[in-house]
């Protein structure tokens, strides 16, 4: 169904090729998992299958990508137009925010078939069929901007489904999803598999794909390192997986942290944490006591109130009436804004200056070069002091944001999904960074990543419907 023959590709403005001479043949009805460290070339391969390379992302390409079952009328991706490829390949991307063309869900479902110029009745019956099969009656006629990440990703799958392509190409579809939402994504993929579709998924989180994919292809530096059946792959030991920079296949979904809490001396008390949007209670917590200077993980399904909680904690919600008591001081909205800092999921939102040095010193009361140097050294950013923050890698940007929070004397740090879309090593680096803040700062980590929680948190608080679900510990 998909034949990749001796393909190499290097992006424009990049000296290194991201894929070197890769050949891969995928049969009809086969489901293939592409894995490997960040930057190994799996996204590039996906883009070659859906035609974004070479039609959208420019660069130098050699080799051929052929689609289609019949030898005679195979479609050469580089010679076909994107809208013709779209009939055969459906794509789902990583970021649920940026894969919608419409603002309401029903038009979104109709968007693909409309582009194909199908008659109206045909489109409507296709939508009905998709909605019934995927059980998404509750997503019809909604404002997409008001949907949770999980719902958006489900809608993205559904709107690809209405085109009923033969091949599905998914690029890290689970990155921003909670465990519950991943479970639903898994069901969608199983449905496609049952219908005999060909599926290619590039992913970092592997556990949910073990019942879906039949074959695992691992890449490193643009070359295939191994290509084996799933049955063999799941037998690999943890240390072997680490060698390839992969996360566990048998992911432990337990959120219990590894190191137990030592006896707590000081605590932070949060009171009256309540917030509603137009009569809809997003957050409803009377009192919550958390240990000071420890790492607290906030987990729970998409839409359980985690983001509202973290925004309230930062003092960003103007109508918010709750308060926090630290060392006998009572902080209200304005003080919380001064004492807390959130490292956002998209760090690009919070880097303002022209150099890293300027960036980290922005919030300091008075500039203290020695202190800046010390912090930059600690976060491994010393040689980047004069670089533009936007030119750094994702992990480095995150560290710049943390460094700036520390230098502006923030007491409480909040990380909003710091590991979404990261491979094993990068995830471990983030965990290390968070661990290093312990005993100096109180850190809240909002996350869907059990691996991260186990590696850095002391306390786990699970949110459900805007309230805290009591855990055993």
């Amino acid at each position, binding site marked *: 169904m998909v034949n990749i023959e001796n393909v190499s590709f290097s992006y424009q403005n990049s000296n290194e090729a991201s894929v070197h001479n890769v050949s891969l043949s995928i049969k009809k009805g086969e489901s293939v998992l592409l894995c490997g460290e960040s930057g190994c070339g799996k996204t590039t391969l996906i883009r070659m299958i859906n035609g974004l390379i070479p039609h959208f992302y420019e660069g130098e390409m050699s080799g051929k990508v052929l689609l289609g079952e019949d030898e005679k009328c195979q479609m050469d991706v580089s010679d076909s137009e*994107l809208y013709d490829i779209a009939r055969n390949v459906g794509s789902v991307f990583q970021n649920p925010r940026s894969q919608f*063309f419409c603002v309401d869900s029903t038009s979104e479902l109709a968007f693909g078939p409309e582009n194909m110029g199908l008659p109206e009745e045909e489109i409507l019956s296709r939508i009905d069929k998709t909605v019934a099969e995927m059980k998404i009656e509750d997503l019809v006629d909604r404002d997409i*901007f008001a949907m949770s990440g999980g719902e958006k990703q489900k809608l993205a799958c559904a709107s690809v489904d209405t085109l009923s392509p033969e091949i599905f190409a998914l690029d890290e579809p689970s990155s921003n999803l909670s465990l519950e939402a991943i479970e639903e994504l898994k069901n969608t993929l199983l449905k496609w598999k049952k219908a005999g579709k060909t599926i290619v998924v590039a992913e970092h989180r592997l556990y949910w794909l073990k019942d879906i994919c039949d074959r695992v292809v691992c890449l490193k530096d643009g070359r295939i390192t191994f290509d084996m059946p799933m049955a063999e792959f799941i037998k690999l030991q943890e240390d072997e997986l680490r060698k390839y920079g992969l996360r566990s296949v048998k992911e432990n979904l337990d959120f219990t942290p590894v190191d137990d809490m030592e006896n707590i001396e000081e605590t932070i008390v949060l009171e009256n944490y309540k917030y509603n949007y137009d009569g809809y209670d997003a957050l409803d917590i009377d009192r919550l006591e958390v240990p000071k200077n420890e790492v607290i993980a906030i987990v729970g*399904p998409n839409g359980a109130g985690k983001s509202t909680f973290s925004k309230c904690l930062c003092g960003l919600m103007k109508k918010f009436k709750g308060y926090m008591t630290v060392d006998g001081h009572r902080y209200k909205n304005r003080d919380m804004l001064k004492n807390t800092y959130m490292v956002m999921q998209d760090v*690009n939102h919070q880097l303002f200056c022209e150099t890293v040095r300027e960036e980290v010193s922005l919030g300091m009361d008075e500039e203290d070069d020695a202190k800046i140097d010390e912090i930059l050294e600690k976060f491994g950013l010393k040689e980047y002091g004069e670089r533009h923050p936007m030119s750094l890698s994702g992990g480095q940007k995150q560290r710049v944001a943390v460094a700036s929070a520390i230098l502006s004397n923030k007491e409480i740090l909040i990380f909003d999904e710091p590991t979404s879309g990261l491979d094993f090593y990068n995830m471990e680096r983030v965990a290390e960074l968070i661990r290093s803040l312990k005993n100096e700062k109180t850190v809240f980590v909002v996350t869907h990543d059990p691996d991260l929680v186990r590696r850095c948190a002391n306390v786990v608080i699970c949110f*459900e419907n805007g309230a805290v679900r009591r855990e055993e510990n």
Partner: protein
Amino acid sequence: MKVCNTKKATIKRGLILDPRTKMLFLITITTFALGGAGGERTTYTVPVLCMFPFFLLLTARRVKTAFIGVALYWGVNILMTFGNAIYLTGVLYFLVLGSCGILGRFLPVIMMGRYLMESTTVSEFTAAMQKMKISEKIIIPLSVMFRFFPTVFDEANSINSAMRMRGIGLGGKHFTKMIEYRMVPLMACCVNIGDELSAAALTRGLGGTVKRTNICKIGFHIQDFIAIGICVIPWILLIMDVLKW
């Protein structure tokens, strides 16, 4: 674990008007309220026309916006009319007159534009453009723009939060750099999102050679005819003015 109950938000549409009617309204208001066409004859129709955007906002349940808008509009107009009577003179009078004049003229147009953006979905908009036989080459970029605005606001909101956490704001010590600090990340984010959006749209077949269909049902109803009727009045007056009847 059960899937949480999410906020069931459907789009607040208000009075359902055909996008073409809304566009006609926008053009009419721009011409007469902002452009001041028609001179003497339309003096009494313009304030009436200017009330419609607020009325439409009311039907879309934007009560607060609508009331503030109406109050501002009339406040400004009253000041303009009676500025002389309350002995405003010199520079002050000049300032009041200038700012009121600008506000009074722009406000209804901005409100109408806002209503148009908020109450029209991308597909309704494209359907309307297609019915007006406008080329796909113009429709696609315009509809992308339509889709892009809410995203830009979303991004700007997040950046604003980030700035508040860093203590950059009115009265902060980095006050002078506020615009630069806001623009740099906004540009970076919008470029990224724009790229991702186009990629997603292209993989779903946008820009093909076949004629697009549109499942969106738009058409003129009684409320459209009433609205068009209202819009026609100042145009007739304008024609009469030009022909010196």
